[in-house]
């Protein structure tokens, strides 16, 4: 299998992962599409040098999250987007209103976190172990544990604030 074919397979197998990252780091559909193709491009650029020194998923998360950080700065400078549709802009069936609300609330909570917390919580929600999170983020395992506890507290107070404001 040649390198391009291998890369295409890797991307096809991880489309959902890239999509979830793009939705967390952007607010608008066009930005999301720009970031999506930027991530694919950056992954391709480093695919040759990735020689399975780390796990494939670790490398993918690292490049995708790092690209998302730098995309924040450039989001107003739009390249010519390759036409494709992010069909999951409606995340749930229209009938499943409660589910849609739950996902919207989830996004709202995560959007309020800072960049580091956002990355850590994304990896936590993706089911990554503390060891894997530590490797991707670049901090010690004990620090990851501390950060996750702090994020839990922060989320609690965010929800309390929102509830108090809402009532």
């Amino acid at each position, binding site marked *: 299998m040649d390198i391009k074919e291998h890369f295409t397979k890797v991307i096809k197998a991880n489309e959902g992962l890239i999509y979830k990252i793009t939705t967390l780091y952007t607010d608008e559909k066009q930005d999301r599409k720009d970031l999506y193709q*930027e991530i694919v491009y950056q992954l391709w650029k480093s695919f040759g040098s990735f020689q399975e020194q780390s796990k494939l998923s670790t490398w993918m998360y690292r490049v995708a999250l790092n690209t998302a950080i730098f995309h924040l700065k450039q989001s107003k400078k739009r390249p010519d987007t390759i036409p494709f549709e992010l069909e999951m802009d409606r995340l749930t069936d229209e009938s499943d209103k409660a589910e849609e609300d739950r996902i919207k609330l989830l996004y709202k909570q995560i959007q309020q976190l800072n960049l*580091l917390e956002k990355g850590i919580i994304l990896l936590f929600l993706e089911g990554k172990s503390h060891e894997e999170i530590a490797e*991707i983020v*670049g901090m010690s395992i004990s620090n990851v544990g501390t950060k996750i506890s702090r994020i839990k507290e922060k*989320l609690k107070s965010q929800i309390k604030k929102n509830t108090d404001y809402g009532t």
Partner: protein
Amino acid sequence: MELEEMKLAWNDLSKRVEKQEILNQQMIEKMTKDQFQSNLKKIALPEYIGTIICYLGAAYLSVNVPKLEEPLIQFFGVISIALLLILPIISLQSIRGMRKINLSSHSYLETIQIFGQQKIRFLKLQKLNISLGLFLLVIGVPVLLALQGKSLNPTPLFWMLYFPLGVMFFLGFSYWVLKYYNRKLQATEKLLTEVNE
């Protein structure tokens, strides 16, 4: 919503997302082509165009300023040339570092730190650039008028009305722009502090 509830909602989302097909093979191939203009590569284009315009302006003034007679306007002309040469350098300097980043070799935390430091540097340079740009606007106008053969002396309104108004606008606009950049600077510094805690 507790963290565990969030995890359940995230799992539901993941199941839905994984069922969808976003890209086909042709689209992936297009995105990997070298001709594809990466967002990060496009950053510098407006700055390069700006540089050419500034240097053309500097060349025009260099040829014409020696022809001016009034020493003060000549002095303004020399300052304008210097600013037209310096401003693009500041602008290009502020984006240069960003292009060196290798997105696969740094951890997420390191990338945030690099991003934050670069953003602070960028914002500071932008503040300097805008202040100098506005200053150029003020001293460049009399030079351009003089080059067109128009004198400022026959219009007493200029010194009594237009000039004070111009200075007020200059100070007000600078205050507003610098306040905006200071706010952004504070937010970035706060992010870096939080990240390093």
